[in-house]
């Protein structure tokens, strides 16, 4: 552990719970607790898991035309995002690649944006220079971010504020928990129902302890967070999406609403719009897909994928892979040439010099369990 490693407000709690701490995006973070990655994963899908995601960047944007300004950086409908609602988005670059993915919420008189830890400094600089002088960019440094995920999350959190019961998937609300003003969204990164809670640093540990006091809640580390999101088919920035992958290649076109597509009232107007419009119209050369190894051996990031057992040129590469505890076997995702990207196609991953079959699979591997309506 290096001396300049950043700590979240829950660092002491993690250590007291017996977490194994690892460096992640400059922070000293819990990768697992004594329960272990496998059981933490299964517990989250069965009951509820508590995650410390305070390393992520929280930013408030204010200004008269802040939604219109934000649309100049993302190919997503922000003007049409109703108050009290949140949406998935991504910053694009001039080549149509993805600078980072993010959540943006309309919290009435401002936008609240949550970005990846590893990208947050670059994202804040990008917003400060790209949103114009009429928008203020305020980095929130005095709040932690907790996620409570799993089928029991609603019942557990309702014990602190019953207001959560009225929220649907991707709703946001200001609620009071443990005597603190919390900014709550019904969302997460596991494929399960759940909530993300922005809480003042001073109240982060009391809130975490109040949640952990519930029999159904276990603390969950980054290890299970990764296997949960992988089974959920969710992208990890820097792995499944990056500056070289476009939203069309990444199969994230669902996040580009019609109004921002060619023919829409506010088409284009974001970095890389021409490339993305062309790919929307004509398709991309490759696509992110699920890949399920036929055997028991996990295939991890970096494994080259081939069309046959003997072909010499790879048709793609695995970008995330490992063991899926809920699936009970190995799961992966990666980019495959469009000709082989149809579900059901059998391709071959080269593992330790041997070609092993993989089946192209629809994502997610585990059906999402979101509360879309209340």
């Amino acid at each position, binding site marked *: 552990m290096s001396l300049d490693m950043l700590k979240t407000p829950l660092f002491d709690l993690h250590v007291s719970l017996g977490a194994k701490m690892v460096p992640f995006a400059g922070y000293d973070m819990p990768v*697992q607790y004594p329960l*272990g*990655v*496998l*059981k933490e994963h299964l517990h989250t899908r069965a009951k509820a898991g508590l995650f410390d995601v305070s390393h992520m960047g929280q930013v408030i944007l204010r200004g008269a035309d802040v939604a219109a300004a934000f649309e100049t950086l993302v190919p997503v409908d922000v003007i049409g995002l109703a108050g009290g609602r949140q949406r998935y988005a991504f910053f694009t670059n001039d080549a149509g690649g993805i600078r980072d993915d993010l959540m943006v919420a309309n919290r009435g008189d401002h936008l609240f944006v949550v970005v990846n830890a590893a990208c947050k400094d670059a994202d804040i600089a990008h917003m400060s220079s790209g949103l114009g002088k009429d928008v203020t960019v305020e980095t929130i440094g005095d709040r932690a971010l907790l996620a409570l995920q799993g089928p029991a999350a609603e019942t557990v959190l309702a014990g602190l504020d019953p207001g959560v019961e009225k929220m649907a998937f991707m709703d946001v609300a200001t609620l009071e928990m443990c005597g603190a003003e919390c900014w709550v969204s019904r969302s997460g990164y596991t494929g399960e129902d759940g909530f993300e809670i922005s809480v003042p640093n001073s109240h982060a540990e009391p809130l975490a302890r109040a949640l952990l006091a519930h029999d159904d809640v276990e603390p969950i580390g980054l*290890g299970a967070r990764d*296997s949960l999101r992988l089974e959920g088919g969710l992208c990890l920035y820097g792995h499944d999406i990056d500056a070289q992958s476009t939203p069309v290649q990444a199969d994230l076109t669902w996040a580009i609403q019609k109004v921002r597509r060619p023919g829409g009232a506010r088409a284009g107007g974001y970095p890389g719009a021409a490339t993305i419009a062309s790919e929307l119209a004509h398709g991309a050369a490759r696509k992110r897909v699920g890949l399920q190894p036929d055997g*028991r*051996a*996990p295939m*991890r990031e970096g494994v080259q994928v081939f069309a046959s057992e003997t072909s010499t040129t790879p048709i793609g590469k695995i970008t995330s892979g*490992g*063991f899926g*505890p809920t699936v009970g076997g*190995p799961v992966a995702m990666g980019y495959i040439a469009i000709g082989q990207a149809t579900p059901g196609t059998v391709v071959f991953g080269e593992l*330790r010099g041997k070609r092993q079959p993989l089946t192209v699979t629809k994502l997610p591997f585990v059906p999402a369990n979101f509360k879309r309506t209340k």
Partner: protein
Amino acid sequence: MKFTEDHEWLRPEGDVIVVGITEHATSQLGDIVFVELPDVGTTVAKTDEVVVIESVKAASDILAPLDGEIVEVNEALADNPALANEDAQGEGWFFKIKASDASQMDEYMDEAAYLALIG
């Protein structure tokens, strides 16, 4: 019983040596989800990669600790890799090797030395 610096244990059993990895190793690796064992009858040289184990975190290679022939592998482990976590130094054994030079055992640590190594 002898131990290697790579956290393998070696237990003589008749004229063969049973090999596995230590509890210390399995607890460091985390939940083991896949074990690829060598074929029975394979002749191996010391430091050959003979077993691949995958935990929820990463893949690791297990090296042959001795020259010899693989005479038996733990098929139960292939079906239930968690045995390596549950009973690392018993039911979670990996393979049995017939050593071609049993004196190679002498260079490995005894239990006290191994426990000192892992602190």
